[in-house]
């Protein structure tokens, strides 16, 4: 069974004359433990796709389901990492990570253990009692990822999570995410407009058209990555130099450009 399933999804915003057709007939299945990235021109509705899975918005027609259950409202089985981090500024790093666990009514000792584990996983041990505004953007996004990971969610939803970071931090976080995906694989829906990021991170890439957004093309990255053994390389720039990487990236670029000019 697919972890995330879009079935004939249509999405409109507004009513009457102002009605805007955001998504057109989206059909998509994301497998368990698969990392799927959606790329597309800005305003194409890629974030809307994520919001439907998160339960922040509802599909106008069709259905979105996670692990076989239709999505009704937001919940900790579908943890979201936002572009602007969305940490609670009045809570410490620990407090931010703890809220979701407390909401699940998990006992104190179990929570302490899980928080300690995730802090270690994200290299945040020394910042447990810091407040978000005392941390850099990259560190804040680590906290946001930790807050999502600690819930052991069915799926992880990442909405341009590195879009607000500077170029260097971004690279570090991308490498970090690859490491994380190896240590603790999850089903990930990743939204980005950066093609290289998508090719570097994803198993599969869905390319969307301009509004009303449709899925134009699905690109299989995983088979290329496995065949060409991208995992040999620690660093993102080494992977980006490979012919197989360049080939994939250029193909997706072309596809996107047709949309932008078209």
């Amino acid at each position: 069974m697919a972890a995330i399933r879009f079935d004939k999804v249509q999405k409109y915003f507004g009513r009457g004359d102002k009605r805007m057709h955001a998504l057109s007939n989206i059909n998509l299945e994301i497998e368990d433990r698969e990392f799927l990235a959606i790329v597309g021109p800005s305003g194409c509705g890629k974030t809307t796709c994520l919001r439907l899975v998160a339960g922040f918005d509802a599909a106008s027609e069709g259905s979105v389901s996670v692990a076989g259950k239709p999505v009704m409202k937001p919940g900790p089985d579908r943890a979201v990492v936002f572009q602007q981090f969305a940490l609670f500024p009045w809570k410490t790093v620990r407090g931010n990570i703890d809220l979701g666990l407390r909401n699940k009514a998990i006992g104190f000792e179990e929570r302490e253990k899980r928080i300690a584990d995730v802090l270690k996983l994200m290299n945040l041990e020394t910042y447990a009692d810091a407040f978000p505004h005392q941390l850099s953007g990259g560190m804040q996004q680590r906290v946001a990822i930790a807050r999502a990971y600690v819930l052991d969610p069915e799926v992880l939803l990442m909405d341009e999570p590195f879009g607000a970071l500077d170029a260097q931090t971004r690279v570090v976080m991308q490498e970090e995410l690859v490491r994380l995906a190896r240590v603790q694989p999850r089903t990930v829906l990743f939204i980005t407009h950066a093609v290289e990021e998508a090719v570097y991170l994803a198993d599969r890439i869905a390319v969307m058209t301009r509004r009303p957004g449709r899925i134009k093309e699905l690109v299989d990255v995983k088979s290329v990555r496995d065949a060409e053994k991208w995992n040999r390389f620690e660093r993102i720039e080494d992977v980006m130099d490979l012919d197989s990487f360049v080939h994939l990236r250029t193909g997706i670029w072309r596809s996107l450009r047709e949309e932008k000019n078209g």
Partner: protein
Amino acid sequence: MDRRLSHSETIGLGALGLMSLIGLWAAISGFGLVPDQFLPTPIAVIGRFIDLFREPFAGFTLQQHLSSSLMRYLYGLLLAAVIGIPLGLAMGWFRTLDDVVTPIFEGLRFIAPIAWVPFAALWFGTGIGGPIMIIFAGAFPPCLINAYRGARFVEPRLIEAARMLGTGHRRMLMEILLPASLPSVMAGVRVAAGLGWQSLVGAELIVASAGVGFMMVQAQASVQTPTVMAGMIAIGITGLLIDVALRQGEGLLRHRLGAD
């Protein structure tokens, strides 16, 4: 404003304005332009102000009147905050509650606190209950409105983050909406404190058996204008001190929250 003034210039100009007012007052009253009873001299008023701390008037010294006023005031303000802030936050979160309460609230809030005096006296007496209701009437609206606006304008991302973490209603109110709207709530409490203090003293002119307002009414009845003005000064200074204290508290809180 044509140019920015330095801090010391601002203070200097403020002092200048205040001194001119007192000078004008001294000139008008001192040169006998108006009778003493119309406008006592600044010296007479300050002398009276000091005397009132030792000599009881209308049964109590000035500090006793003040503490009696402050006590009522604190009860009323506390009541307004304890009811107004949670209700405002809840209205900001539960749409149905908002729809039910808003028309009632909008209908009542433009009635000046002083207009409640007859009913306050009738329902709660002229002792402690009546005046508390009047200050409540003055202090409640800003507590409620600011908590409501604070809750409505919380950054949507934070609410979405809390929802995806599975946060329930109670925790949403206490741990997300309240802290997120704290700056707005604090500003509301400060406005409420000012309005409450104004309405309390007004209310004491009519209902009360002690208090600064009561003292002023008694003095007025026996045409003791210096005592009336001493009461006005006490009200002004106390109001100012309350405001300064709350500003300080607000600043500390903002700092604590990392808002600046």
